[in-house]
């Protein structure tokens, strides 16, 4: 289980939002919804790495173990940021493979091709990422986050750059993998339509 107990974030001594508490079972997704500038993205970033001037308070435990104050959840998580943040010197395939660096095995290329097919980018592994459209680049970023099957998926408005048809396809692929892997998903969004359908939880932040 992933438990957030009275978790809040302070920037330069200023609390950004009211403390949040929730418990996620494997395969569940928590949607954090709230106005712009509230600190939702800052919370996700603080779960990955320490940042100067940003303090995280409260208790976060993953399967009974408290979060390491230094490495945070970086070893167990992958993130889709608001921008694709691809590396311009690597091909589409190499950008995705990079996220599987710690995983042993020679099947990385197979996994890359399978994810690209699922996200409608089949045959683009050798392409220059900066020749893709912004929506395609965003899908590569999603594939990069899904590739290593990490236990936690942090989603920082991953669908905002996509058209409505692709949006549904990508959303379905992300939530499907979280459920199949028994992973934990934390989704930050402004848009109620980005939330997963079904019994997942929503936290309205203030």
């Amino acid at each position, binding site marked *: 289980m992933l438990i957030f107990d009275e978790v809040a974030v302070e920037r330069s001594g200023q609390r950004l939002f009211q403390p949040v508490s929730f418990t996620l079972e494997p395969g569940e997704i928590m949607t954090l919804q709230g106005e712009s500038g509230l600190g939702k993205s800052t919370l996700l*970033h603080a779960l*990955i*790495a320490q*940042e*100067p001037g940003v303090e995280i308070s409260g208790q976060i435990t993953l399967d009974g173990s408290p979060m390491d104050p230094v490495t945070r959840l*970086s*070893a167990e*998580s*992958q*993130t889709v*940021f608001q*921008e*694709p*943040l*691809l*590396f*311009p*010197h690597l091909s589409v395939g190499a950008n995705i493979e*990079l*996220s*599987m*660096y*710690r995983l042993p095995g020679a099947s990385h290329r197979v996994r890359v091709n399978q994810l690209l097919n699922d996200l409608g980018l089949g045959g683009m592994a050798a392409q*220059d*990422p*900066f*020749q893709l*459209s*912004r929506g395609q*680049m965003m899908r590569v970023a999603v594939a*990069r986050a899904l590739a*290593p099957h*990490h236990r936690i998926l942090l989603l920082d408005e991953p669908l905002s750059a996509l058209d409505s048809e692709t949006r549904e396809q990508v959303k379905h692929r992300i939530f499907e993998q979280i459920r199949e892997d028994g992973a934990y998903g934390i989704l930050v969004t402004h848009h109620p339509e980005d939330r997963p359908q079904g019994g997942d939880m929503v936290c309205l932040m203030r």
Partner: protein
Amino acid sequence: MERALFWEGSVNWIERFFVLILILPVIGLLDEAYGRYSGVSWIQGLTRLWSEPALIESLILSVWVASVSLVISLFIARAISAKTLQVNDSQLWRSVLLAIPHSALAIGLLLALSAGGVGWRWISVIFELPLDQQYLFPRDPWGIGMIVSLVIKESAFLIAIAIPITKRLPLRSYQVIARQAGLTQIQCHHQLIWPQAIRLMWPAIFVVFVFGLTNLEVSLILGPDQPQLIGVRLFQLLTDPDALNRQAGALGLLIMLVGLAVVSGVFHRSVRARVKDRLSDAMAFTHGATVLRWALIAAFWLSIVSLLMWSVTMRWSVFEPLPHVSLNALTSLKTLASPFWVSLSIGLATGVIAIVLAVCILEYLVSKGQKRLHWVWWAFLWLPALPMASGLLAWIYFFGGSPGLWPVVLGHTLIALPYVMIVMSDSWFDRDRRHDMFLKQAGLPVGRRILLIWVPRHSRLLVLAFALAFAVSCALYTQTILLGGGRVETLMTELMVTVSGERRLAALTGLANLLLPLIAFALALWVNRLSWSHRAGMQGEGYADFR
């Protein structure tokens, strides 16, 4: 909110280490000044220093040359930066401007404007003046030759610093405000943009003043018939076999350092605190700056033409405007083979060491959340080359070492590293932190992150910085002559030797010294472009994270 050129907060252990490197040469000088080698008290050293003839005159001339060349350079930098704010590839131009080999250009200028020089022959023909008379440089009491030579380098340096600084300001908003107030684009630059840039630029302005005050090369190139600057006088004392003279030289340098510390305080206060209560007449300045700009460009090209013409001259009668040229004149190139290879080796070693150190240091600073370069790196440029090199030499002797190739590489690296750090730091500090978050999540160790991601990603910047370090190394004289004990022959030291000899060889050496850094730049850019021709995001400055 002003974003200053450097950070003035607390220093970390790397910066402390480099402060130590900066202080060590001064301690070495103190040791020498106190009389370790002469065996007499510092008062006797001081008496010896005062007994030097015309020392005060040299000091006054040096201050005059440094101040006038600084004012003219600022004037030109203001005019040119107003025209070049729209430059797209600022990193390329910044690096090329920082790498201008002023000594080679000074030789060209000397060969152009001295008696029998290219320019002088042409001017004499036009104005029907006697060709065999010397009017310009001999016993130049106002240091005009030195001022012109220094302005070429200093204005380029100030423009290189001014462009990125002005680009940090909200230029578009200022231009809208200016247009609404009825100001032209040039007036907007002079009234609204430049006064802010100059407040942020004071560290660079001080570097230029120090460079002008303590410059050795230009004064040596322009010849012994010139009144000598204070740097040359102290250099002669410091390299004298007599220990008392060396002690006097060390004392002179220490007095100069104290003086510069006082001047730096004045610079800091007067430039940063300056608030104007009325607008200046921008147009009057603009016309003056335009004249100066064209004069500078003319001097630059005259210098290049002069180097080229003298390099291939077989015979040139003093009464003829053009020489008899032959490529046979290039046979003298053979004599430059050895200094060429030494320059190349030292330049490559300096470039590689400076880049490796800069990448490691910047990576560490980014990981600690630092956003800007600390003033310590600028301090390396504030410390004149002479005390730095002679202090380092004192330490090399103290540890039982002797001057040679590696001390020269060390000296060159300590000067090239701050330049490299200044050029690279903005891109390193401005990178998106989320990239680091992703790499941390992917589990890449720090070494792999640097080699697989940051080095290839910033490859264009790195090759430009490498070429800059190489060019800086090619242009260093004081460090080479002192730390090499006079035994390490580079193109730059050869330039100093040949300048008082045959003109053809001097021009060839100057040309080689000018071309070597330019070839390094061209090669570096070509190799990088070729390597990334298949990656759209790596073209240009290569910083786009998304389209």
